[in-house]
């Protein structure tokens, strides 16, 4: 059974359909990479699935539970955590507090919040900080922290909510090459150690290809391609969307396919 199922999910802003009739499934333990040009509706898809934006039509099911109309905090308690493209953080708090608050409130609904964090939340926080390699730098305030630290803290904050599935929106966007490698090893470790199901959006193809079991490319709010990572760069429609018609024609001519004449007309 699939852990996450999206059935003809549509999100409209007025006349604009940011996501249109998109269906896909994610099996437990799988890493699905989502790519696509800017404005393809990738982040909107995450907003809709994680409950920050209401769905216009369609259905989202998490582990057998319909979460189409659930609020974002409830979806978090049900086991779906996400990170953000913008470097979201609680600026006035330390890195450790950023993770602690998620550990305390993210696991279940606190009917009557207590006065202390409790051993469990503290233990999970330290474990997650260790896992992303932020334990040494956890006391500095998040305001003014480097982009890499904020990204790692966001991942730690998502992990402490004990998710069944993790949605990552551009985990390496805006990072340098060596930083990308660092995040990659963290994500790979998380996937391996926690057996976590992951959906990640990324423009950095190297990152996307190496981590994903399956790749989906979105364009104009719809699915353009879905398949194995190595098939992506072979797909004529993906090449056309990313690099334009002439690039596709050149590739076709180089590899001696018969479609050259068709694209030239």
């Amino acid at each position, binding site marked *: 059974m699939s852990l996450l199922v999206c059935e003809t999910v549509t999100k409209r802003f007025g006349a604009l359909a940011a996501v249109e009739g998109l269906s896909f499934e994610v099996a437990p333990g799988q890493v699905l990479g989502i790519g696509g040009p800017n404005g393809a509706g990738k982040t909107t898809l995450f907003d809709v699935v*994680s409950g*920050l934006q209401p769905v216009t039509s369609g259905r989202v099911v998490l582990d057998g539970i319909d979460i189409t109309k659930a*609020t*974002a*905090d*409830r979806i*978090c*308690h049900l086991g779906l*955590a*996400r990170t*953000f493209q913008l470097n*979201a*953080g*609680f*600026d*006035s*708090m330390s890195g450790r*507090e950023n993770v*602690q*608050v*998620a550990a*305390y*409130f*993210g*696991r*279940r*609904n*606190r009917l009557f*919040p*207590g*006065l*202390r*964090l409790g051993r469990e*939340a503290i233990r999970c926080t330290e474990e997650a900080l260790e896992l992303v390699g932020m334990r040494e730098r956890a006391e500095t305030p998040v305001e003014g922290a480097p982009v890499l630290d904020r990204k790692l803290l966001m991942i730690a*904050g998502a992990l402490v*909510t004990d998710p069944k599935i993790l949605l990552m929106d551009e985990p390496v966007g805006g990072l340098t090459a060596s930083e990308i490698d660092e995040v990659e090893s963290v994500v790979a470790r998380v996937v391996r150690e926690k057996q976590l199901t992951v959906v990640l959006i990324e423009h950095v193809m190297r990152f996307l290809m190496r981590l994903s079991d399956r790749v989906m490319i979105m364009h104009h709010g719809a699915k353009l391609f879905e398949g194995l990572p190595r098939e992506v760069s072979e797909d004529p429609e993906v090449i056309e969307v990313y690099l334009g018609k002439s690039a596709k024609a050149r590739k076709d001519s180089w590899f001696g396919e018969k479609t050259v004449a068709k694209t030239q007309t």
Partner: protein
Amino acid sequence: MLSGVARDILIAFLFLAVFATLPFVLDGRYYTGQIVTIFFYAVVASQWNLVFGVAGIFSLAQMALFAFGAYATAMLGFYLDWSVWAAMPLAGLTTVLVSILIGLACLRLTGAYVALLTLSIAQVVYFLIVTDTDCFVMEGVRCRQFTGGAVGFSQFGDLGTRKAFRGDWLTANYFIVLALLIVSMLFTYVIVKSPMGLAFRALRDNPGYAISRGIGRFKYQLLVFGLSAFFTGIAGGLWASHFRAIGPNLLSLSLMLFVLATMVVGGVGRFWGPLVGAILLVGADEVMREFGEYRTLGLGLILAVFVVAMPQGIVGLLKAGAACLRRRLKETAG
């Protein structure tokens, strides 16, 4: 280096030592009375700070809650002959209910719209009381409105200190209000340091991110509305009992702006901000008293200077200064 909690305890003891000796060294009741008003403003501002500073909700309803507590205490005493000591806790609890109702009405809004709605609620209550002319009871030939109308209430009882301590009643009241200040500031300290405090700050810093980490905005913002109301209501009741008379001026715009200013001058969201701000502003008000009408102008100027030049307030400025000094020392040492 001191940890945060150790530093706060040290500051608390310094303040306490000063406040405990002041009534015995000051001559004349006037200054003791002024310090009592500082305490009152500090209590209200510290609770307001939970909503406004810590949770980042721009509510202007706090003085209306304060007035509600005062009116509840006065009316229970006046109509039902309750002792103010029995009336104050009930006033505190009902103020919590009122605050939650206001929260329910406001929290579908965000930002400046919350300020607009809460301000209009406070102003509507003010005008409803002032324009109330229906007689509720007749006192001889005088007609009394249920809400006290423009006149308000008096002779509803007091703290009993005048009877018990005679000439020293003001000193007794001083320590009762100081006790409320201590308890209410301890209350905010515990709340801010608890997971709830983290949740409130998380919702202030980044609502979308906070909700995605399981912190329901509506629930926790409603919670902070309720929590901040209890001691505000009690403070209102104690104000009524201390001054033995109240009127609709508790809801006036100028008093609200004064208490808001104490929070801004002290430092919004800072634990010591409201107390420091209340001391400074009541002190400044005292100095400017001689200038008559220019006094309000002076207060406005102080507020403007702080908003523009020192948005972190005095406490924020001191903290930044201390951090800078520590860095310097480290550099010279290293």
